[in-house]
């Protein structure tokens, strides 16, 4: 067994948790269990961000995904009170079609990534780019137009939700 740094060990642990909980999302029959697995998966991914010293991304990931989006998921599931036994049974051919198309997507992704050349990543994870001040400066100088455009997109989504809700 070669030398394993603490970081590598934490990385393997986090990845194992992320993969196991991601499998749990699709394999568990009870929708509430799926949502809870997804929350664990998001927390594990947030752990990867902190390993990269991307503190801001870490905390925003927690606030937005685990704190807001998943709460809404859980909220809807609980309001509708979905259970494993009232879940509609899918036809067999649908399952096969899903498995084949999912596998095809996996093939495409693997094929694309195999040929892709990754730009040289700086060794070591102690970069400061993920800290809030650097991230803010980058967003508001190099990427200000896409950043502002996406905020308009969010605003339109909000207005859309209100319009649908008023009907």
């Amino acid at each position, binding site marked *: 067994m070669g030398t394993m740094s603490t970081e590598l060990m934490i990385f393997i642990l986090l990845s194992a948790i992320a993969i196991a909980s991601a499998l749990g999302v699709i394999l568990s029959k009870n929708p*509430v269990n799926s949502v809870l697995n997804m929350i664990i998966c998001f927390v594990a991914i947030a752990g990867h961000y902190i390993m990269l010293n991307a503190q801001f991304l870490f905390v*925003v990931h927690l606030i937005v995904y685990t*704190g807001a989006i998943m*709460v809404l998921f*859980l909220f809807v599931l609980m309001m509708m009170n979905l259970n494993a036994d009232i879940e509609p049974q899918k036809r067999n051919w649908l399952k096969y079609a899903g498995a084949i198309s999912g596998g095809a997507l996996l093939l495409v992704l693997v094929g694309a990534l195999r040929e892709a050349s990754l730009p040289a990543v700086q060794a070591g994870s102690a970069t400061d780019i993920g800290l809030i001040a650097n991230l803010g400066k980058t967003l508001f100088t190099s990427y200000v137009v896409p950043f502002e455009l996406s905020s308009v997109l969010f605003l339109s989504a909000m207005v859309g939700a209100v319009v649908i809700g008023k009907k």
Partner: protein
Amino acid sequence: MNVHLLAIDWFFVIEKILLISAVLAVSLVIAMYSTWGERKVAAWIQDRRGPNRAGPFGLLQPLADGGKLFFKEEIIPATANKFLFVLGPSMAMLTACLTSAVIPWGDVLNIGGKDISLQIADVNIGVLWIMAVVGMGVYGIMIGGWASNNKFSLMAACRGASQVISYELPMGLSLIALFMLSGSLSLKDIVEQQREGLWYVVLQPIGFLIFLICAFAECNRTPFDLPEAENELNGGYHLEYSSMKLGFYLFAEYINMFISSALMATLYFGGYSFPYMDSLGLSPNLVTILGICALFLKTFAFIFFFMWVRWTLPRFRYDQLMKLGWKVLIPLALLNMLITGAVVLYRQG
């Protein structure tokens, strides 16, 4: 395996473990005695005596209550989801304890020539971490309420979730106005700025007021204790809970109250700094210890305020709660943010 595998600074690890244990123990003890304090304050406000049988001034009452909760029969309803039923109160306790990590409980303490910071993690994103944990705090209520398989619990859980989500928004917006002034998200930096300058409550009175109201809502305290409105919901989300699982839910509420009081003291009332602390001419260690006392004094004042409000104001109706959150607090917080931004920009020239 190689010996250099775990190149860990053991002194650092031990220091942090000790600090974490101390902070946890202090929060648990304070939460425990908050239950006693709450009953004493309630008694004082209602012109009664309050607990006075167990020990002097009833000081052993929390121990008696804890013992009672531990030995009570533990009932898990037959139709409940067993795993989630246990997970609910555990999540409530976990999220209540997590927030204390980023609060600076004091300045640096010098022991044997080594500087020990009395803050567990001085991270760059301190305040956002608290927002994240507060956002996750709702899972304890929701999971517990749903797993009980009882319609009243479920309704309370839904109320709790929508309340916490609604009041997180003005809370975050009022914090943004504060960050515009501080220029940092680290709680340590925010305290150090107040040590030299004015307390932020002077510069951000509206922001503080919004934050205070939202803290009440996030802690499910009266007048926003809709998730446990006992006369509409038979006791709320913890209706089916008994024994120490119920105790955990109630206890988590008191820990939350303690932490949010400490947070308000830190953000708006100077944290561990107190007036003239640098001109007293005392040794740094003594100033640090006095600073810890100052922080706890401010925190206790806020805890008293929480109790005072609980025994003074009636509960809001649910639609009033939502109206206050969305139609009053959020526009007010946005306006506060806008004005703060304009003033900061104007002063920069």
